[in-house]
């Protein structure tokens, strides 16, 4: 099926070339980092995790959100998701690959990465994270590829796929819970030491992931003959709405505990992020942008009439995704390290090489996504029968 990604129009190849050039530049930046050490980033003794780990954290959520289309279709026979499940699974594959790459570029001694497997440490959450992420990748490749292959041959997928589907449904929330556990169990970091970290992670993941999936489905519909379906997009819109409400609610809960208790350790990170300490206020505009985007998104998503208008829905989804990307992919990580254990402030901002490397990882993810989607779309365009009551375009 891979050969289907080798045939495309000029727009396709221009996009591929663009991604390859971003990857090339980022790769050179990575060589620079590999030679000189992580000092070329903006991280410091106090803020020892930054953009790379933030992006990893956010993307695990996007990967986990695949379950939001798989669960209704395979577990509850929600036929309207029939055309979109493979897009969700392939998005999950692309996101997990980006997660692994972000971890890799963040390591001080990347050539020693196999030590995590050679010296397994069950009490370390990071060890489990490696296991569950790898497992999830395998599951999604297995299920997505097999189901797509069956569609290509115009037969129903083999029965043995079903147990793996059920496994992936249970696995998806677990990958993001484990990621939340990286943060939620650290005794010295009061910003993260909260029981609802995992709940917040899942809520924001199930808002951001489907929001991205809606946008991708619209792009696929615009540039190919394949239409994932208006009803699927609307159903996903409802999912984004409810989980975004939940996510904002959870954030409100955190604010309440911090500020009603008036305990300095709980409040200080929030104050740094949203108000700043004196001249240390680098992240304040960024966090308020995230909040404004969330309010804009919610005020649009709550009204079904606005959701029904696909252009407005696209805007609301973009706003959701961007808001959560800032909050989880940046603010959450940096906020945990500020103030430091000595109650001092060291600020963080990514450097240019760091940004180029991060962009290259995104470009690799987008390349994987493009290739996988090209294969999926080409095969689904050729599907002859129409099960869902909306017209499918037959290949001439």
């Amino acid at each position, binding site marked *: 099926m891979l050969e289907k990604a080798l045939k495309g129009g000029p727009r396709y190849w221009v996009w591929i070339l663009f991604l390859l050039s971003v990857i090339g530049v980022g790769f050179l930046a990575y060589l620079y980092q590999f030679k000189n050490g992580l000092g070329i980033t903006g991280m410091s*003794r106090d803020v020892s995790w930054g953009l790379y780990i933030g992006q990893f954290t956010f993307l695990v959520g996007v990967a986990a959100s695949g379950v939001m289309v798989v669960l209704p279709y395979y577990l509850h026979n929600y036929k309207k998701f029939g055309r979109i499940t493979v897009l969700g699974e392939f998005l999950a594959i692309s996101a997990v690959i980006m997660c692994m790459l972000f971890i890799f570029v963040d390591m001080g001694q990347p050539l020693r990465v196999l030590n995590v497997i050679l010296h397994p440490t069950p009490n370390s959450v990071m060890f489990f994270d490696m296991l569950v992420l790898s497992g999830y990748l395998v599951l999604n490749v297995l299920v997505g590829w097999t189901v797509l292959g069956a569609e290509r041959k115009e037969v129903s997928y083999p029965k043995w796929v079903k147990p793996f589907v059920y496994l992936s449904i249970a696995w998806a929330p677990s990958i993001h819970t484990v990621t939340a556990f990286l943060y939620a169990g650290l005794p010295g970091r009061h910003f993260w030491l909260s029981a609802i970290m995992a709940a917040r992670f899942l809520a924001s993941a199930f808002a951001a992931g489907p929001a991205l999936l809606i946008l991708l489905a619209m792009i696929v519909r615009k540039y190919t003959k394949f239409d994932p379906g208006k009803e699927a997009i609307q159903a996903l819109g409802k999912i984004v709405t409810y989980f975004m409400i939940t996510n904002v609610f959870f954030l409100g809960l955190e604010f309440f505990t911090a500020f009603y208790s008036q305990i300095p350790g709980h409040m200080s990170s929030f104050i740094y992020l949203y108000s700043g300490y004196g001249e240390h206020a680098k992240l304040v505009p960024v966090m308020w942008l995230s909040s404004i985007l969330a309010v804009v998104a919610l005020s649009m998503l709550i009204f079904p009439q606005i959701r029904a208008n696909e252009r407005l829905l696209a805007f609301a989804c973009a706003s959701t995704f961007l808001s959560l990307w800032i909050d989880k992919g940046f603010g959450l990580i940096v906020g945990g390290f500020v103030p430091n254990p000595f109650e001092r402030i060291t600020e963080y901002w990514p450097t240019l090489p760091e940004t180029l490397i991060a962009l290259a990882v995104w470009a690799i993810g987008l390349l994987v996504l493009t290739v996988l989607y090209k294969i999926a779309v080409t095969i689904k365009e050729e599907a002859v029968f129409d099960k869902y009551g909306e017209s499918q375009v037959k290949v001439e």
Partner: protein
Amino acid sequence: MSIKRREFLKLAGISTVLGFGGVSAVTGLRRTLEASEVMPNPEALVAKKWGMVVDMSKFKTEEDYQRCIDACNHVHNVPSIDNPKKEIKWIWEEHYENAFPGNEAPYLSEKIKELPFLVLCNHCTNPPCVRVCPTKATFKRKSDGIVMMDMHRCIGCRFCMAACPYGARSFNWEDPRPFIKKEQGNYPNPEFPTRTKGVVEKCTFCYERLAKGLKPACVEASKGALLFGDLEDPNSEVRQVLGSRYSFRRRPELGTQPNVYYIF
């Protein structure tokens, strides 16, 4: 004869896996090193749980502090990096309100507010850094409770730095060798390695000196201001001192059970 592309790819894949598997199996089964006897150094200082007492009453001048810090930095080739974002420190001075956050008080005596405290890794009995390390590169030594660093195994993920509530750990953001101070007599100390970029480091209670029967470098340089001994030996100097005077530790409410005590 013709072969379908899928069959060819499957064949190639299986051959590769078998090839790697076969090679690994053969090398693994080769004759392994006969472990002749190994044993601890007979002169080594031993304890069930090493601990330290910082006697603040014996630190009178800035020189008293610097002597301890310089001794450690010299013996361990700790680099001297000016940029506070990338600096590496194993033992250093902090003010009271920074070393003991949460203990701030509006009418605290100025003397206490200005008094520098020596801070270092607390070699906790319940260390969160050990709990999170995915490779056991940092681990608690079974023999004496020292929280050790295995520089060979560290992958530089910095999870331990996030987990440590005391900010005791430093990461090598770049090659430290150019930053090792030349003024110290024996530069760098040829009996101890440096580190390289990409690994985390911290105080290790001078395990290499303990192995030779010597007290930690800072303890030796402190002229009695730093006491070092076995916290589980009721007759040790540290236990005598702790039994007779009021002592306190950094952030005990976190359950890490730090083993560095402070007395006035």
